[in-house]
């Protein structure tokens, strides 16, 4: 999670597996918005000699809807090309890689970027260099500086980067997928009579010391929004051609036919946690505009109904709410329509009645200075954080756990009082659980962990 290996089909295709999407007003460049789409989950840093890379045969896209219909009005398309300088060595590099054109770097990637609108397709750039993966002190001796050279400035005030980054999404996968265990409260878990846990415990960041591949683009907000409509919806997709054949003569896959979507991600955890197993692959193949097909899984979430059973006696009001069968219009607003004006004083990111899972960002709300940010975003009184877009440091696990547990239901039903425990839910992690520091500037996600030092 938030969308790592979230559906059966895409879990077999990590190169096309989107893991996280971020969208936020750039804190260091007011007037611009940063969009980040991560792919290739849970990368072990030492995964050589064929280190992780984008798929040449995958069409990666970041979509922006600026009129609320759940369909893309602008799409940034990314196509990668892999170049092998010397096929007669097994090595990724034959010496230190000290520049992006180093002759020692044997296996590199470049990419083209295209902007597609409803009426035009514009090639923004060709043959942009990706950085190498972070291997170690001999192969990539000054990795931070090397990767910084792969940040490219494009015409129109656009900045772009594509390559390996440290995983910035922190989550206790090991506990959560062990039947909904939250270590800070595991002594309260029903434990199925096994009585394994007697005391609370600290969370464990399962993604620490792992890397992802990021596509990051920073764009003037004016390029993305419609006049007087500052809220945008953002999601990413990956597509493959319909036919793939193993060409045994050449020992490679060949592809044919039109591209079809195999992966989609807007809000974190929607497909992962809310969509049932038998629908996840279908969900991945559809645009947000079709999400009315899945709305029931969001307004009647199974996880919210399960929480009171997993933690007996802790969530009596949530149990009553679930039993009453009241549709969770609060979750519908947060995840499918945006939050209308009037629910939270001075805030809205409503895009209209179309039910569509998109990460909605009201670009007119300025970035919150780092010292004043709340990792709980809007729930923590910080309107520049999730679910108003998403910043890399936002604790989306805690925010969504709390929302599912009923914290946000009073927004739509003032007679409801959440359980006291709901506002305390967490898997016990914070941005400090991520060993690689986040960057204060583009592309914001930290320098990837090196294979030499991780695992240590």
């Amino acid at each position, binding site marked *: 999670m938030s969308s790592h290996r979230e559906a059966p089909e895409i879990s077999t295709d990590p190169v096309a597996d989107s893991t996280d999407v971020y969208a936020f007003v750039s804190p260091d460049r007011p007037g611009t918005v940063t969009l980040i789409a991560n792919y290739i989950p849970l990368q072990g840093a030492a995964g050589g000699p064929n280190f992780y890379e984008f798929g040449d045969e995958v069409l990666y896209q970041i979509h922006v809807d600026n009129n609320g219909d759940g369909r893309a009005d602008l799409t940034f398309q990314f196509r990668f090309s892999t170049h092998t300088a010397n096929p007669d060595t097994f090595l990724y590099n034959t010496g230190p890689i000290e520049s992006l054109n180093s002759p020692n770097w044997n296996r590199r990637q470049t990419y083209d970027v295209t902007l597609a609108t409803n009426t035009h397709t514009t090639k923004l750039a060709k043959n942009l260099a990706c950085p190498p993966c972070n291997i170690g002190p001999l192969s990539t001796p000054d990795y931070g500086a090397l990767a910084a050279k792969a940040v490219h400035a494009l015409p129109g005030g656009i900045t772009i980067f594509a390559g390996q980054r440290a995983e910035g999404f922190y989550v206790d996968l090991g506990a959560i997928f062990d039947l909904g265990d939250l270590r800070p409260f595991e002594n309260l878990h029903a434990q199925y009579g096994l009585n394994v846990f007697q005391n609370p415990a600290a969370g464990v960041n399962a993604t620490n010391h792992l890397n992802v591949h990021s596509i990051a683009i920073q764009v003037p907000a004016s390029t993305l929004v419609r006049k007087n409509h500052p809220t945008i919806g953002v999601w990413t997709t990956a597509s493959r*051609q*319909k*036919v793939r*054949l193993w*060409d*045994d*003569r050449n020992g490679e896959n*060949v*592809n*044919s*036919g*039109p*591209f079809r979507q195999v992966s989609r991600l807007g809000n974190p955890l929607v497909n992962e946690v809310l969509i049932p197993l038998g629908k996840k692959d279908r969900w991945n193949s559809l645009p947000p505009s079709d999400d009315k097909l899945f709305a029931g899984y969001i307004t009647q979430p199974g996880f919210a109904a399960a929480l009171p059973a997993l933690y007996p006696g802790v969530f009596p009001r949530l149990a009553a709410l679930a039993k009453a069968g009241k549709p969770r219009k609060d979750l519908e607003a947060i995840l499918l329509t945006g939050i209308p004006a009037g629910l939270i004083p001075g805030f809205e990111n409503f895009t209209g009645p179309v039910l569509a899972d998109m990460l909605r960002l009201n670009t007119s709300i300025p970035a919150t200075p780092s010292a004043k940010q709340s990792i709980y975003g809007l729930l923590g009184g910080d309107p520049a954080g999730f679910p108003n877009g998403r910043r890399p440091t936002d604790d989306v696990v805690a925010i969504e756990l709390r929302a599912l547990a009923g914290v946000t239901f009073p927004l739509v039903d003032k007679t409801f009082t959440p359980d006291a425990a709901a506002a305390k839910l967490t898997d016990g992690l914070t941005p400090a659980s991520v060993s690689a520091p986040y960057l204060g500037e583009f592309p914001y996600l930290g320098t990837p962990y090196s294979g030499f030092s991780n695992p240590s």
Partner: protein
Amino acid sequence: MPRKPSLSRRSLLRGAAGAGAAGLAAGALGTTSNTASNTASTLEATGASAATLTAATEKTPLVVHVRDARTGDIEVFAGTTQTRLRDRDLAARIAGAIS
């Protein structure tokens, strides 16, 4: 959008032959001498050759997918295009080639 290759039944067989092992139908056709002979006859009769394939099919495989031989529902993939045909006779010939 890329231009769709123009596909008649004859050009489909030409493409299948030219695509060699990469095409589903072509791969199957190549396994039986009888069918290979039929394909060669078609090429000869039309004066066509693999060189007449479109640029799209030269760069990527032309793949024929018989979805339903009974109804003749056939999909042809070339480049980034997909064309749907309904030809029971052609589907039967392809199916016959692998039986």
